[in-house]
């Protein structure tokens, strides 16, 4: 019975983690779809947002969940600036090496994480919210339950807010003009241009939204995770692993990929060892590359066409 308890508990925490991972990957998948580049500074944008949330809490006592509304717009503007002044000019530069923009994002990641170290020191920080350790227990509801399960309050809250943001994004992509032009650009750039989509503006907005999404993820991670300047790299890795598992540029794939990775990672951490969790992340990444190069999106697509 203890084994079952452990398994279900791992499954639950993996699911909750996966929901937050999906939010990180969504931004990356959007950027990947429209710009055809991998933003390797994605995790570092998240780090910036987390520091914003941290300082807002320290100085003004603003709850991290409220600072979503502050950090996301800030990162939206920041992302648009990056796209406008750094990435767009590079598109026009001729060079021998391909993927200049990707290398550019690596440069930005280096600058951001190092500046954070210089200004905020390398110390690990966390936000001491009052509800950090509160949780719901199964035995509270069902007295004679044979197994004991718990559901942490901040994890659940973060997960639910993450789901709400994801649904909001879906509505935005499906219903609004801007959302439709983002999808059009990611499906076929030339066709979108011919249909009168302002591709440059779409790129700007997409990069902004990608950054805003990862800022939301950062604020949601703050109550349950700790914060340090080099954290960006880890979440960039998470982001691109999910993007590949889900299928490049597919938002639905990113959500499913996020859940898969979250569950897989907590399984590795529980049954093999904490230190191996990052290795598990990359092993699933390599497996996805070898056996499922199109990602989850290719399965979804073939299902749809099969009907």
């Amino acid at each position, binding site marked *: 019975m203890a084994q079952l308890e452990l398994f279900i508990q791992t499954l639950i925490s993996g699911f909750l983690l996966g929901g937050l991972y999906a939010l990180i990957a969504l931004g990356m998948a959007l950027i990947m779809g429209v710009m055809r580049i991998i933003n390797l500074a994605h995790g570092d944008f998240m780090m910036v947002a987390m520091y914003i949330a941290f300082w807002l809490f320290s100085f003004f006592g603003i709850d991290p969940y409220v600072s979503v509304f502050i950090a996301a717009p800030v990162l939206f503007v920041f992302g648009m600036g990056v796209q406008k002044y750094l990435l767009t000019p590079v598109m026009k530069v001729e060079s*021998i090496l391909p993927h*200049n923009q990707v290398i550019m994002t690596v*440069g930005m990641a280096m600058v951001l994480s190092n500046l954070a170290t210089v200004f905020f020191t390398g110390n690990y920080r966390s936000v001491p919210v009052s509800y950090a350790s509160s949780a719901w227990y199964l035995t509270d509801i069902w007295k004679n339950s044979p197994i004991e399960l718990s559901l942490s309050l901040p994890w659940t809250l973060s997960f639910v807010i993450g789901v709400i943001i994801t649904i909001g994004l879906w509505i935005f992509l499906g219903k609004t003009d801007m959302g439709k032009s983002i999808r059009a650009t990611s499906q076929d750039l030339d066709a979108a241009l011919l249909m009168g989509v302002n591709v440059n503006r779409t790129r700007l907005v997409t990069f902004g939204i990608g950054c805003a999404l990862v800022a939301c993820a950062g604020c949601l991670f703050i109550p349950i995770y700790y914060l340090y300047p080099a954290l960006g790299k880890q979440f960039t890795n998470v982001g691109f692993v999910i993007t590949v598992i889900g299928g490049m540029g597919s938002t639905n794939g990113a959500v499913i990929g996020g859940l898969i990775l979250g569950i897989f990672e907590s399984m590795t951490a529980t049954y093999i060892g904490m230190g191996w969790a990052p290795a598990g992340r990359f092993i699933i990444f390599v497996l996805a590359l070898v056996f499922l190069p199109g990602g989850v999106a290719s399965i979804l697509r073939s299902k749809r066409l099969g009907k």
Partner: protein
Amino acid sequence: MNKSLLKKFLPLIIFIILLVVPFMGLSSYLMHILILVLMWSVIGQAWNVLGGYTGQVSFGHAAFFGVGAYTAGILYQHVEISAWWGLPVCIVVLTLLSLAIGYICLRLRGAYFALATLALGEICRVTAENLVDFTRGNLGIMIRERTWVDKTWFFYIILLIAAGTYFLVKILIESKLGYYFVAIREDQDAAESLGINTTLYKTISLCISGVLTGIAGAFYMNYMGYIDPGVVFPLYDLSITTVMVVMVGGAATYWGPIIGAIIMVFLAEVIRSLPYIGAAHQTIFGVILICIIMFLPNGIVGDFGKLVGPVISKWWKKDTSS
């Protein structure tokens, strides 16, 4: 002197000048810098074969470097023979590793390949950290009795490796193989339709690149006498710095990685020694990387004309055109 003759013998002249460097009574610190420059030029040349000539940008050369270093270290730790055996043995190990990595990654194109190599670098690091019985994990491996205290012989060995790498790459790129590589870089589909077995040649390119990087890694183990996963598998300090060495110097040029290595090593030393600014060396590197991409995308050698003006560039172009 005749210009073309000078150009032809320039590498040889530099090699001979470097041969007498240890007799000039340079301080041990300067010798250390020179050794690092030569080592980075080897890694840069190696990356250049794969990234510059074949067009497969890799963000994971730390994997090759680290595995080379660990090959030497593990030979010393477990087999209990001199770590210098790592140099020949790592050729075999790195060839096998490159074949495995090539099998997984080379079916991918462009940014996908870059990501896969990045992930493989990280896999290697995590594996080295966790296989404690085999690699001693984060404790690292230390060579307790150093071969030489003096740096002269280390210098000669790395000089030999660097010169060998230079000539090997030069011969390789000027052979038929080199033209295949460049054809793959310019247009993989066109190369394929001309009957070039692109997967085979990309794998060859990866093997050469991996083995050369691994040799540099094995040398590093012998030279520094201590390695741990954080030192030999880092993303920014190794994989990305390798990309920077080539980008600063100039991708797909013979001299690019050498010039890049000189600039990057000296820059790193200067920046790190400055007070206050030293802590921000990655910021400065990142800014340099961004500026290079925006204004000098083909590096100092590749965009020499832009820098110095058309007169000298004409003289220079004949020498460096690939």
